[in-house]
């Protein structure tokens, strides 16, 4: 929502590392989280995303570096005093308390008098549209209702930041979409910072202003969902995010479009704005699956390849095609169902894929030619 560049950072990770014995979970992480933004931290399991969130919540101590909240170092401040409430993957609702008492918990710990406590808890239950469940036991709630209780419980103290650790991972697909809407709207209405840890690209992209991609304890890329989707900064991100095809090659010719030599032939790429390239540089060409055209006849352009149809995966109006290139590697294409239907492909049929030089994205994979 917010214009990131103009706001001041609410949270700063300044060279933060976390080691467990010999294992480094987070490597010198530098990250600024702005007031009022929805930031998603995404990565495969074990990438350090949850550890980072737990350090921010004060549930883990950084081994190195400094975490600042509102400009103040908080390394030594215990979780109890931080007001950085978290929504847990397991939800961690108290099974021996009813809904209302669960929501009141944070206020009770802060010595808020009983009447005010009840009023504020009810206000949040109402806001989450579960006021009628106030007297229920946690065990009587459905997955989505529990989710709402967990949100109300975390927000009842009216914090400036809310931490969410894969809160939707236990819900079924339909409910996930609904809760994404709820979370998105809530964050915009409250205007507070949400830090959302997930391994799901659709969750991260659907809700957040900025996305952090982590791998093996390091930040691979930080940017808007669109930046990350269209311009992955590293091969890891290109592989992890979206449906990308990656061809490795070396620069054969510069000037105008780049000519890149790969095992499958020569391809043209738009040099774009991303620095100068030299002949002999190693590059990965990223071709997003949704920017590929397919045809039965050879389109006779330079950026085309013949491939063999393997299978298709039908998800509503968009179909993902899996094909095999002449060298045996995979190629993915996303296209509209009705375009594909016209071609009536069978397994083993050959067809052509082609793409525009301007629709490619380049990732440097090495220094000047070491060949």
């Amino acid at each position: 929502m917010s214009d990131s560049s103009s706001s001041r950072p609410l949270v700063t990770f300044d060279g933060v590392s976390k080691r467990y014995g010999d294992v480094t979970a987070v490597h010198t992480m530098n990250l600024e989280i702005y007031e009022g933004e929805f930031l998603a931290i995404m990565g495969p399991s074990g990438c350090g995303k949850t550890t980072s969130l737990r350090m921010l919540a004060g549930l883990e101590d950084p081994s190195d570096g400094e975490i600042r909240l509102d400009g103040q170092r908080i390394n030594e401040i215990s979780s109890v005093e931080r007001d950085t409430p978290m929504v847990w993957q397991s939800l961690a609702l108290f099974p021996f308390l009813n809904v209302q008492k669960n929501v009141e918990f944070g206020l009770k710990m802060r010595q808020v008098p009983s009447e005010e406590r009840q009023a504020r808890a009810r206000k949040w239950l109402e806001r989450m549209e579960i006021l009628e469940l106030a007297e229920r036991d946690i065990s009587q709630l459905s997955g989505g209702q529990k989710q709402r209780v967990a949100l109300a419980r975390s927000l009842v103290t009216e914090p400036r930041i809310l931490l969410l650790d894969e809160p939707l991972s236990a819900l079924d697909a339909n409910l996930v979409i609904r809760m994404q809407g709820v979370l998105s709207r809530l964050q915009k209405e409250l205007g507070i910072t949400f830090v959302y840890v997930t391994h799901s690209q659709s969750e991260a992209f659907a809700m957040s202003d900025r996305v952090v991609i982590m791998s093996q304890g390091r930040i691979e890329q930080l940017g808007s969902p669109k930046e990350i989707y269209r311009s992955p900064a590293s091969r890891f991100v290109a592989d992890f995010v979206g449906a990308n095809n990656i061809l490795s090659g070396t620069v054969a010719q510069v000037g105008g479009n780049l000519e890149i030599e790969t095992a499958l032939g020569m391809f043209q790429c738009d040099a774009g704005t991303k620095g100068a390239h030299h002949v002999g540089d190693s590059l990965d060409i990223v071709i997003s699956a949704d920017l590929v055209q397919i045809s039965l006849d050879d389109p006779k352009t330079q950026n085309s390849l013949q491939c063999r149809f393997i299978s298709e995966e039908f998800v509503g109006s968009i179909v993902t095609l899996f094909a095999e290139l002449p060298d045996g590697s995979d190629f993915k294409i996303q296209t509209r169902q009705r375009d594909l239907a016209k071609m009536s492909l069978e397994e083993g049929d050959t067809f052509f894929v082609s793409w525009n030089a301007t629709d490619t994205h380049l990732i440097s994979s090495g220094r000047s030619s070491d060949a």
Partner: protein
Amino acid sequence: MSQGNSKSLLLRGYVVLVFIFVFTPIVTSFIFSVNSDRFPTIPLGHFTTHWYETIFADPDVWDAFRVSGIVSITVAILATFIGFCTAYTDYRYNFTGKALYLSLALLPPTIPLVIMGLAMLALLARINMSGEIYSIVVSHVVLCSPFAMAVIRMRLAQINPDLESAAWNLGASNWRAMREVIVPFCRPAIASAFCLTAAVSFDEFAVAWFVSGLNKTVPVIILEILQGNTDPQINAIGSIVFITSMTLVILAQLILMRKTINQTATGI
């Protein structure tokens, strides 16, 4: 299908036989406690409460029940507290020597009771603490704490570790989280441990016999009556002891089971 049926019938029969084997002596004892004959013979005489009346006319028996009551309740409180602390330490912390700590904590019930009683007497006599009610309490706490720990530890193994962190995250100090989250979560196990340790202490003879001195507990007085004369008084007092401790044990089991059934039904 029919083979499965006959097998299950056989197994059921076996279970019934085991129960008969276990409970016949107790049932027999109860029957003779309300039988008018002086000696346990068949055919039975007529129904009587005479033996119970005799028992309760004896002030020594009353005294023994008083001592046993005080001892078992005090022991239950202390042993449950110690058991809870031990179980929580095991749940919450990792430290070197934890395996040793645990095996030491669970050791007392594996020591033969006679040895334990002798050792307790030797120690307590040396420090001038034997022969008092608190001597029995001390010895029984040693004996009972591991049972309390085992029951509470089982409950803690089911807790979602995020619950405690969630309490801290919502502003609860360590102590507050213990009071507001850990203890309420363990409440059924704590109640169950209380009943169980009370029953163990109420029943225990060997150690009590060594350290009780003049403060005889019920099992000790039973032996004394038995040595003096064998009449159905023994059956009467035995039945009372049996009913008391069975009630406690069944209560302990019910409290635990009700909680578990609740939770499997709702899938927490």
